[in-house]
């Protein structure tokens, strides 16, 4: 079981009920659960969307798209039914925040789904969890069943005459299915290959109907925003980055864990204060700030606020909120290899640049790692990654290219030294492991 952590700098909004047994519906109700949705029914879609816009909430799945705006894109009139889709595929390496959310507060996801449904005029929501999260799926399934039993879901919810249903769904192992259109394909019983865009999901989504898709944490924020008011929520965060966010800090820190910090919180403080600094008193070497797809940062770059805009300006991304900390013992060559190996394994294979690029870079870095590298390899890897960037069918190609480019650019010398026989860091993957695994 994931251990809960805490730090005084935390501002608990979505994590407010963590550790309080809120997976139990009565407990959830006692802790102000299902109030926001009733207010939402009373006040109507326009009010919901206005509050969401005012909150400055931006998508917690990675891209940071303003949620209120996304909801407002859904056409009011539609021949086909509209849907709400909750993305709980959480598979970006370094990310485990939705894990805790489903575990400790599944009802907030359900309530958020209902609110999104009310905002766009949908009567059916789906909550999709990655296949590995079976025990969490059971928790969510129980929460959904309890909500039905109480009349919070189904026909005539809360006696208001409004209908809303929720269906839970499991994946079966595929990172790419976290991409929104691939998720829809998967939910329709197909291979997790993304769709051509446009049309965007808000217009043509699941089963061809207009669909709002949000990350589980994004959705779980909705009831809190309605309860505290959009503006109050916005004030918790930084400019154009409303509210708080769950950050999962992992790797070489003393106190890894999922912390809820205000948007814009200092990265340095997150590492050195909140997570207790570098493990075993070692030196910081690098940070992958928002899941494995984000360009790596150097120790001198960490005086930056954790929000979408400031991280963008710093040449990287806030991403999924999974901050991975690397100490001085890490070989970047090895880390880059492990990263590209992941994308190679998870590439859906649909488009040429991603399918072939991840495979090629992985093969080259493997050879380099095994001591068979030559000088040109560094340039080649950079060339390949740069030629994947922006050219693929979906953002996974970018997610593979961006960190690769950053590793090679920021640690070029380490790659060159490695090839020349001076290996920095302490490689841990054995040659045998490399061959066997992927």
């Amino acid at each position, binding site marked *: *079981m*994931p*251990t809960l952590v805490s730090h005084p700098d935390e501002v608990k909004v979505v994590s407010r009920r963590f550790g309080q047994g809120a997976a139990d519906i009565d407990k959830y109700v006692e802790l102000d659960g299902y109030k926001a949705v009733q207010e939402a029914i009373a006040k109507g879609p326009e009010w919901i969307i206005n509050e969401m816009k005012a909150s400055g909430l931006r998508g917690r799945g990675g891209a940071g798209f303003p949620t209120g705006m996304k909801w407002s894109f859904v056409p009011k009139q539609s021949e086909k*039914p509209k849907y709400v889709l909750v993305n709980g595929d*959480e*598979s*970006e*390496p*370094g*990310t*485990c925040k*939705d*894990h805790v959310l489903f575990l400790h507060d599944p009802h907030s996801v359900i309530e958020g789904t209902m609110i999104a449904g009310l905002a766009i005029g949908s009567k*059916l929501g789906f909550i999709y969890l990655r*296949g*590995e999260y*079976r*025990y969490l799926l059971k928790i969510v399934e129980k929460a959904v069943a309890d909500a039905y039993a109480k009349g919070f879901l189904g026909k005539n919810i809360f006696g208001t005459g409004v209908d809303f249903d929720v*269906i839970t*769904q*499991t*994946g*079966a*192992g*595929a*990172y790419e299915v976290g991409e929104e259109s691939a998720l829809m394909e*998967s*939910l*329709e*019983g*197909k*291979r*997790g290959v993304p769709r051509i865009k446009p049309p965007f999901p808000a217009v043509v989504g699941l*089963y061809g109907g207009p669909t709002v898709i949000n990350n589980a944490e994004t959705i779980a924020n909705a009831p809190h925003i309605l309860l505290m008011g959009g503006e109050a929520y916005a004030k918790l965060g930084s400019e154009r980055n409303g509210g708080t966010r769950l950050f*999962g*800090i*992992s*790797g*070489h820190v003393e106190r*890894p*864990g*999922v912390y809820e910090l205000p948007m814009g919180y200092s990265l340095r403080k997150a590492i050195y204060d909140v997570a207790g600094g570098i493990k075993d008193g070692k030196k910081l070497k690098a940070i*992958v700030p928002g899941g*494995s797809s984000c360009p790596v940062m150097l120790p001198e770059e960490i005086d930056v606020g954790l929000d979408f805009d400031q991280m963008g300006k710093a040449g990287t991304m806030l991403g999924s909120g*999974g901050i*991975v*900390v*690397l100490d001085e013992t*890490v070989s970047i060559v090895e*880390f880059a290899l*492990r*990263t590209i190996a*992941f994308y190679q*394994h*998870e590439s*859906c294979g649909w488009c040429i640049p991603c399918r072939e690029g991840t495979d090629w870079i992985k093969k080259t870095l493997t050879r380099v790692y095994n001591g068979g590298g030559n000088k040109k390899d560094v340039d080649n890897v950079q060339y390949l990654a740069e030629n994947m960037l922006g050219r693929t069918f979906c953002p996974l190609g970018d997610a593979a290219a961006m960190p690769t480019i950053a590793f090679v650019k920021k640690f070029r010398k380490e790659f060159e030294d490695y090839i020349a026989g001076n290996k920095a860091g302490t490689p841990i*993957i054995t040659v045998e*492991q490399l061959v*066997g*695994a992927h």
Partner: protein
Amino acid sequence: MSEIANTIFSPELAARFDKLVTIYPLRRSALVPMLLYAQDEVGYVSDAVIAEIAERIGLLELDVRNVLSYYSMLRTKPAGKYNVQVCTNISCMLRGGYEILDHCKHKLGIGHKETTSDGVFSLEEVECIGACCWAPAIQINYDFHDDLTPEKVDVLFQMYRDGQGKDVK
């Protein structure tokens, strides 16, 4: 159509599938969960499983194979009773994931995607399983075990051998 005579599944699972295909706007949405649940019961996705699921949903077997081969959790060969899945992705790697993997290989005497001769354990190196903050982490069947050390792994294996671990079902 959903009710199948001579189903290969247990009555409970068959009943569950009968219902599952009806809850979605399109039957086909039941495909991925059905494959996974069938695998949980049968141990893997056999040709017979494919045939029955294709029939239940009204798909060609080829369609089912196309989908099934996409998802990394679905397998077409049997695995051990307890499938040990060791994460070696970045957060786990930084905190000893490969050490755990090596330890498991050594302890169980098997490699990636292999099964012990008694059929009790199988081993798999997997990508991030969403337990990065509690690394290194593994899953045995669907259960998470985190913040591991080789010693803790030994205790776990013994527990499973003693029949105290959870089955898939």
